[in-house]
């Protein structure tokens, strides 16, 4: 097994470890998610400190220990500076990182997800796209890349493209009014369904051109979280409740 690993990586999580170290969750381009210790990274004169924080993309030199990797050297490529200066962008960016960290298993290469997260952080940094739509795009894309691609191109049974549709988690697709199965189904307006489908086939930089009504955004959010909940426990996502808090505080102003 290779002892040293030189790779591009995104920092998904960074938390204090002991008195002076940091424990990182990295999404590497070649080897997927892995955990690494950044020794001494909390010291003010540490050479690693600036590169082991959230929203960092860098070139890391890691060496494999018994259970964890250790960061030996790193060079920061970009640190998405504007994200940390805008509380909403920060909250969305952290949510993307948390979702990626919780959905990926260690050691499974996921270069498409690496590029997806990098592009979505870039989009937040440039503040071009509607942040809410970007979050919906990210949720749909990451589920699709992990193998949970939803079927949104017409009724699963008869192929009808006339709405309204009903989403079924167990079937992984939509049904028309006539063919809707029994049990739990989620109602889905035709326009929102088309929006979700177009987001799924879109490149991240194109999300900036998408427009949606407040009702569509709300319906898409409810659908995504209903879909996510089927595979992972959405209530465990701290990032989501933080976003709600921030949005509520802004409404109160």
């Amino acid at each position, binding site marked *: 097994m290779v002892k040293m690993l030189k790779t591009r990586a995104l920092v998904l999580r960074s938390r204090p470890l002991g*008195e002076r170290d940091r424990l990182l969750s990295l999404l590497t381009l070649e080897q997927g998610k892995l955990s690494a210790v950044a020794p001494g990274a909390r010291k003010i004169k540490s*050479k690693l400190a600036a590169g082991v924080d959230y929203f960092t993309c860098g070139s890391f030199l890691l060496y494999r220990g018994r259970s964890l990797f250790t960061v030996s050297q790193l060079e920061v490529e970009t640190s998405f500076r504007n994200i940390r200066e805008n509380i909403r962008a*920060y909250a969305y960016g952290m949510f993307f990182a948390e979702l990626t960290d919780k959905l990926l298993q260690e050691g499974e290469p996921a270069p498409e997800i690496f590029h997806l997260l990098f592009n979505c952080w870039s989009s937040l940094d440039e503040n071009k796209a509607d942040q809410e739509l970007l979050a919906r795009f990210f949720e749909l894309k990451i589920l699709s890349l992990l193998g949970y691609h939803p079927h949104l191109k017409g009724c699963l049974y008869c192929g009808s493209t006339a709405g309204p549709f009903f989403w079924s988690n167990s079937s992984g697709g939509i049904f028309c009014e006539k063919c809707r199965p029994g049990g739990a189904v989620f109602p889905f307006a035709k326009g929102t369904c088309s929006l979700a489908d177009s987001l799924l086939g879109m490149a991240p930089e194109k999300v900036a051109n998408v427009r949606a009504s407040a009702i569509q955004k709300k319906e898409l959010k409810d659908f995504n979280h209903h879909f996510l909940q089927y595979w992972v426990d959405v209530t465990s996502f701290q990032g989501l409740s933080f976003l709600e*808090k921030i949005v509520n505080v802004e409404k109160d102003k």
Partner: protein
Amino acid sequence: MLFSPSITRLVEVFRRLPGIGPKTALRLTFFVLTMKNEEVQEMARALVEAKKRVRYCTRCRNLTEDELCPVCRDERRDKALLCVVQEPRDMMVIEKTGQFKGRYFILHGALSPVEGIGPDELMIPQLLQLIKDKKIEEVVIATNPNVEGDATAYYIAGAAKPLGVRVTRIGFGLPVGGDLEYADELTMTRALESRREM
């Protein structure tokens, strides 16, 4: 079982402390067992009393045994100048310099979606009320220079500026005694941005 239940229990208690692993916990346990009875009792009393007496200052949320901490009670302090820090330890570091003559507000953390810490948990509404009530003229934000500290600083600045107060942040730059060649891009960028006239 290798050790008696009392020893095992004490080891478990020490292990709850930050930075204490199983070996250090065992070493501390054996050390306590070699101490004199009076010393052990004094240690136990100190722990219980500190926990019982120490509370948050009602004004700045510093740790104190009275309603107000010594800094808030000090009338010579500049009442119009307020420094916002993450932890009481950060306040101590600033106090050691002897350069800051204002008062403090301690957040006891930073905004962190991952840890579920939002503005209410940091008592930011209480901070804004303090700025209004005490006629603060300048708020100096001294949160950590990392992502969470930056987000907290920008959030406070955004909320405090409409109150008509001057909001500043402590400078960023190179550590004293460091070599320029080892500086990373982000630190260097910030050092250049906060350069000053000589």
